[in-house]
């Protein structure tokens, strides 16, 4: 049997007395497109934060291609091939778009410790950063400052930064949030172009766009996995209608 790209086993996290996730277990196979859905407060982003190391779980296990992640700091998990985007944009607003991507590229290179050379002299990094921006359709805007760009452009930049790192597992936290219908379609198109050697887990509320992207869907409710299966199975399941799609 192939090792899953991500394996989450019995993950528990409490915020004070409030359980955010309860015995959450699921696994995602390499190359899979997985959608995680659930009402507000279901624990979707909490799971992302537990996988990336922004939060420490009370108990459980998270494995990336068979390797336990929980005893590693966030940056070490990133070096193993993990990348994520944030629901609430987390960018460097006073810097140019290209500089944002350069910081993403630097994160995986030993060059980031160099206090002596000129960063701008490293043409290979800037070329790679330009390529990542071009990939999301921001090639023309490389030298603009993030603070002067539109919300849709920033969403694309989030994606470019994650893709530039050539991750094995890409975690997208509501990549379509706040976008116009037209922009949604175009970001959706970008997601479709991501090669199959990248495994993708996505949290998304926009069912129309997200449903046909996902191969398998995990439904969370009150911190628990309620339903998991193929798109058709989950949509057909009565519990899905009950907790999420509404009557």
């Amino acid at each position, binding site marked *: 049997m192939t090792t899953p790209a991500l394996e989450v086993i019995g993950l528990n996290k409490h915020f004070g007395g409030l359980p955010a996730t309860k015995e959450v277990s699921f696994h995602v196979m390499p190359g899979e497109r997985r959608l995680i859905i659930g009402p507000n407060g279901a624990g979707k982003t909490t799971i992302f934060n537990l996988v*990336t*190391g*922004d939060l420490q779980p009370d108990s459980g296990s998270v494995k990336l291609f068979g390797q336990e992640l929980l005893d590693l*700091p*966030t*940056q070490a998990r*990133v*070096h193993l091939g993990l*990348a*994520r985007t*944030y629901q609430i944009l*987390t*960018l*460097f*607003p*006073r*810097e140019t778009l290209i*500089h944002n991507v*350069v*910081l*993403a590229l*630097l*994160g*995986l290179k030993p*060059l*980031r*410790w*160099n*206090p*002596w*050379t*000129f*960063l*701008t002299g*490293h043409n290979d990094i800037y070329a790679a950063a330009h390529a990542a921006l071009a990939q999301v359709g921001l090639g023309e805007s490389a030298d603009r400052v993030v603070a002067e760009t539109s919300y849709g452009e920033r969403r694309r930049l989030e994606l470019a*930064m994650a893709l530039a*790192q050539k991750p094995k597992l890409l975690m997208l936290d509501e990549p379509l949030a706040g976008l116009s219908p037209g922009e949604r379609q175009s970001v959706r198109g970008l997601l479709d172009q991501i090669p199959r050697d990248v495994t993708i887990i996505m949290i998304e509320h926009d069912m129309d766009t997200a449903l046909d992207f996902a191969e398998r869907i995990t439904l969370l409710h009150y911190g628990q996995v309620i339903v998991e299966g193929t798109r058709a199975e989950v949509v057909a399941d009565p519990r899905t209608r009950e907790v999420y799609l509404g009557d």
Partner: protein
Amino acid sequence: MKRASIISLAIAAAALVAVPWIIGGDFYINMASQVLIYALFALSINLMLGYGGMVSLGHAAYLGVAGYTCILLVTAGYNQLTAAVIAVLFSTAFAGVFGVLSLRAPGLGFIMITLAIGQIVWGIAYRANDLTGGDNGMSFPARPMPFGFDIRDAKSFYYFTLIVFAIAFFFLWRFSRSPFGASLVGTKDQPRRMRMLGHNVWLIQLLTFVLAGFWGSVASILYVYYNLFLSPHALALQQSAEILLMAILGGATSLTGPIVGAAIITLIKNVISTYVERWNTLLGAIFVIAIIFMPYGLVPGCKQLWGWLQNRRKNRTLQHDAPSEPTA
């Protein structure tokens, strides 16, 4: 590098070299040396403050550790170079411990730990009579003779300081444009995101702390050479706070800001204080006014003002030219 900045750098360098001829008089040449020493202190603390967003109130601790070590070693009979090198290395290692302890806590906790450690060093200097001479301080036997040059008089000491300062500034300038410098600025703005991009935020901050400690220690050795004396007053909280204020007043986000801040505060302290008794009040007033009108400090503020004036002039020329344009 842009042509304008090359020209301004050349002018600044020429001016610094010419200072002894321009001003004359040992009193003012000595003051120029002091400005350079404090500028190095301010530049070193600004690595943490301006680039890394770490506010330290314990920077004068290096003056204690490096300064007393150097004095003790020279007094014990070691040669000047060995004493200076060991003092700087020891003080830099101390910065490593200082950094590990301070970085246990973010934000306000960080400031309080740096304050506490600064005060501990001050307390030891004050209390350990046998080691440091306590409140009476310790005098330094004599300035060294680097490569056989005599730097006892004001002019040659100024040039000695200028050379050390220029080397430091060159390194710090390269640092500010380097990949590490860019990563450091990133950790100031978005530490969480930087982690998620693969950067080790803690290590970046610690290495910056140590680097700031290193240049702070170098400045401390210059301070001892200049004053030929060190007492606990030199490492009191007031000293740490003044160094911090220099960086903030001049503009922590710019490379040259701390130098300007150091020059202004040192001059007020030394020159104005001979005329005005309440020079501390004046310093406070200047600080408050500067921060009200230029919240990012004088250098970024003046740059902004200059850009605004340029724009206005350009617009006015455009308006003036407009009627002479042929109309369709």
